[in-house]
């Protein structure tokens, strides 16, 4: 059976003949359903082949690759490391600043460049603003998966304010190409600090409004508590990261445990799921970790805004970026988890090998483990709680 094509409509289920793409034989009581590449709730082009027994899922096999855009091959053909940054933007298009940051950090470590402190502060501010924007998308769409259409619009209304901030800084709303190797592309415009402070003051009560509307709603809790439970040791074995790992009770955040930029100068807390309304590691825990991370991000931004030093944002950019031959693996904490770049250089101006370790790719691989035994309605909530962006899964 051709394993990449969906089943035709006139197939007849016979016990010894129907085989899933993983080689499992399906009994006649079970049905293979495709939550196909186009589907309102799979957050992108993801195909889930589900084997169901009534409404209970027996197996869920994700098929990816519909958005593969050959990032790694492109990176090898660039003549300059700076030229890879727009491509890195487009991997996880909901959180571009974090992608830029990771790649720029990797190249700077390889070349042992020290960036000015002002650059570090601005990078932290941008990364945290981007974290809030990305979590707003994740939480809003999670509400839609649950059937609540209103929180989505509230989240996007608040996200507009963040995108306005980004627009006055670098001119773009979604894909910025802002954090370059050795510095930034533009300095902060006049009025940015005031507008950002205004945003922080505006946003704090909005988180409470969102919680009242969705997070602590009885129906939402019934949909997400005890659903898709991911035990902590399974999460570590499957190298989950970000809110997936912290939602399972593992106290691990790269901003604190493998520090980069100036995160150690700020006072903030790592949010961990405690199983408040269900088991530790269920969908509600991951959801509340994201909500609370937004609060912590606002805290970090306020502290950073208060303490930005003066300086030049482009002084460390070298004319020719030519790292010595060698390799490096750098990881940063993006809203989805641990984004890692493994760069091998052969001494010339273009990279020899760039491997992007996308957190959504790795987090998605745990889906068959946590979806087994759930119902189809639960599967929507589970996939939503993994918070995948297919651009990062497929690169």
């Amino acid at each position: 059976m051709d394993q990449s094509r969906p089943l035709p409509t006139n197939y007849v289920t016979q016990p010894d003949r129907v085989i899933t793409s993983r080689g499992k034989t399906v009994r006649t009581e079970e049905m293979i359903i495709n939550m196909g590449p186009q589907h309102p709730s799979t957050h992108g082009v993801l195909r889930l082949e589900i084997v169901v027994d009534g409404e209970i899922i027996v197996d869920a096999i994700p098929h990816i690759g519909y958005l593969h855009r050959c990032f790694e091959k492109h990176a090898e053909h660039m003549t300059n490391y700076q030229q890879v940054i727009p491509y890195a933007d487009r991997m996880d298009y909901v959180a571009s600043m974090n992608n830029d940051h990771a790649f720029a950090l990797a190249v700077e470590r390889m070349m042992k460049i020290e960036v000015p402190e002002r650059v570090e502060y601005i990078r932290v501010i941008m990364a945290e603003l981007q974290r809030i924007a990305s979590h707003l998308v994740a939480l809003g769409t999670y509400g839609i998966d649950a059937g609540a259409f209103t929180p989505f619009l509230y989240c996007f209304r608040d996200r507009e304010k963040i995108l306005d901030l980004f627009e006055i800084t670098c001119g773009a709303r979604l894909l910025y190409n802002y954090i370059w190797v050795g510095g930034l592309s533009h300095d902060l415009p006049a009025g940015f600090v005031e507008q950002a402070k205004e945003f922080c003051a505006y946003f704090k009560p909005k988180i409470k409004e969102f919680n009242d509307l969705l997070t602590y709603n009885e129906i939402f809790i019934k949909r997400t508590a005890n659903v898709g439970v991911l035990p902590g040791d399974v999460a570590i074995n499957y190298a989950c990261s970000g809110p997936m790992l912290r939602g399972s009770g593992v106290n691990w955040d790269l901003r604190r445990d493998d520090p980069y930029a100036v995160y150690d100068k700020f006072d903030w807390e790592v949010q961990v799921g405690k199983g408040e309304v269900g088991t530790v590691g269920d969908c509600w825990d991951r959801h509340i970790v994201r909500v609370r991370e937004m609060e912590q991000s606002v805290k970090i931004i306020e502290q950073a805004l208060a303490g930005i030093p003066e300086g030049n944002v482009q002084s460390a950019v070298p004319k020719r970026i030519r790292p010595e031959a060698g390799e490096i693996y750098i990881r940063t904490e993006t809203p989805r988890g641990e984004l890692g770049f493994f760069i091998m250089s052969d001494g010339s101006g273009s990279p020899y090998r760039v491997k992007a370790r996308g957190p959504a790719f790795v987090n998605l691989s745990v889906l068959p483990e946590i979806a087994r035994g759930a119902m189809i309605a639960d599967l929507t909530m589970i996939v939503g709680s993994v918070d995948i962006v297919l651009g990062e899964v497929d690169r």
Partner: protein
Amino acid sequence: MTPQEILDKLTSQFGDAILESKLDVAQPWIKIARDRAEGICLYLRDEPSLQFDYLMCLSGVELSDGNLGVVYHLSSIIHKHKIVLKTVCSKEDPHIQSASAVWGTANWHEREAFDMFGIIFDGHPDLRRILLPDDWEGYPLRKDYKVQEFYNGIKVPY
């Protein structure tokens, strides 16, 4: 633990399976034999003083001498140390033992390495292409890759 101590533990346990190492760079690496990868990884994960329970990244590479290789980046959440492992194989005989029984995440990473480089992982439960369509020809990230002319009737080169 320092990289030197990790290397000493590994050599004392596996002896000749540890081929080479370079510890004076920013990210020290240890090269291991390709048919003993699973045993070594299991030891690294379970030994109480090492406990490398987190496989950060598993990448396929093509080295400048034309051989294929796999680079494992391991870290430990408990002890907070990191190490890099490498294995090498040739293009004519691209077999490396799979680590998917040790870390669940290696499953998809190895499928991607197979998809992009053609490295065959022995013992992998479900080795098939992951990012490209199942009937694609060739292994794109190899340096000598020539894109196919037609795919199912669609002209591929731009």
